[in-house]
């Protein structure tokens, strides 16, 4: 039997944010872009005690949310292994008894996204929740835990 999950609680940064780990590129990488997003609860209120981890199979990073509920990564688009380029994403927060799995796809990969076995299998209406948007030369990816525009979360 697996050890069950428990929430990270509000004080996770004591253990998990002792180092800056939100940079997935080498210094000076000309293709690096900033990906920023807000983590939002069922009433659209920013979650200020959340943490996001992203992974593309080669690179990994994490970012706590700040006092505005914002997380930030410096990254480049991954190379697609299967399907369209994407990051697998875990969401942690006070109030989340287990971390949740979602994905970030890229806005300039419409064709590849449509053919992606995971993205392509989603209802049309929900696909947009997994695609980052362009913003000031970088990328924007908000995560909504609940509601009509809730981000798609996967079993894991």
């Amino acid at each position: 039997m697996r050890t069950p999950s428990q929430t990270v609680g509000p004080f996770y940064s004591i253990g998990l944010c002792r180092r800056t780990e939100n940079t997935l590129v080498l210094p000076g990488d000309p293709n690096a872009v900033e990906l920023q997003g807000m983590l939002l609860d069922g009433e659209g209120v920013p979650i200020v005690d959340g943490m996001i981890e992203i992974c593309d199979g080669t690179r990994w990073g994490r970012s706590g949310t700040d006092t505005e509920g914002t997380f930030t990564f410096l990254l480049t688009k991954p190379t697609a292994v299967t399907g369209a380029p994407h990051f697998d994403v875990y969401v942690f927060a006070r109030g989340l008894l287990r971390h949740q799995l979602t994905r970030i796809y890229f806005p300039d990969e419409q064709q590849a996204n449509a053919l992606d076995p995971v993205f392509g299998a989603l209802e049309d209406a929900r696909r947009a929740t997994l695609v980052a948007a362009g913003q000031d030369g970088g990328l924007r990816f908000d995560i909504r835990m609940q509601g009509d525009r809730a981000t798609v979360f996967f079993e894991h």
Partner: protein
Amino acid sequence: MQAEETPVVLPDDPTFGTEVQVNYPGYRSTRLRAPDRPLVTMPEELHALQGPVFGEDAVQEADDDLTRQHDGEPLGERIIVTGRVTDEDGHPIRSALIEVWQANSAGRYRHSVEQHPAPLDPNFSGGGRCLTDDEGRYRFVTVKPGSYPWGNHANAWRPAHIHFSVFGRAFTQRLVTQMYFPGDPLFRYDPIFNAVRDPRSRALLVAELDMAVTEPEWALGFRWDIVLGRGGPDTTPLEDA
């Protein structure tokens, strides 16, 4: 005092197995944060990613001894917490990064949003990390954390616990959880602990006092093993492939 709308703690339900009930009503913060739509199934092979790999540089001197991170020793009951990290088939997880964080012995976290009016300890930060060895073993020295109130409901107190974060080999083996101490009288009142509805599964969150780990005239020892889910096909240990 106003009657609670929902019971803080629900009865045991073994059908949950190893899963925690993410929308557990007694834990108030779940209401606006737990996903309210069914999770979408993803074929396993599509997210059988390798997890991050951490080397020796991930860990520094005294990271695994929370009593030696300052000039003086923290107040409280000195303890040793040790155990093994394995997958469900019993394979040890080597070089797994384990990160811990906890309140001090007075039940106070060193954190800017902490509001409990218990004393900070200038000799205790409450954060640590280590890598498992070739048998999947980890070991921390720390002080026993205190219980503390948390405002979830009237007279809510958390049982003493240490937060654990573990990276397995596969991305899907990621675990964040809490380790509790045996026989804590607050167990029956705590919605976070009881959100694990299956009592057999809940028992896996509780460490055992172990006299073989205990060091005479020095520190009580607790043993707590951690079992991660199975990794993907590419994460089987080489000698078993």
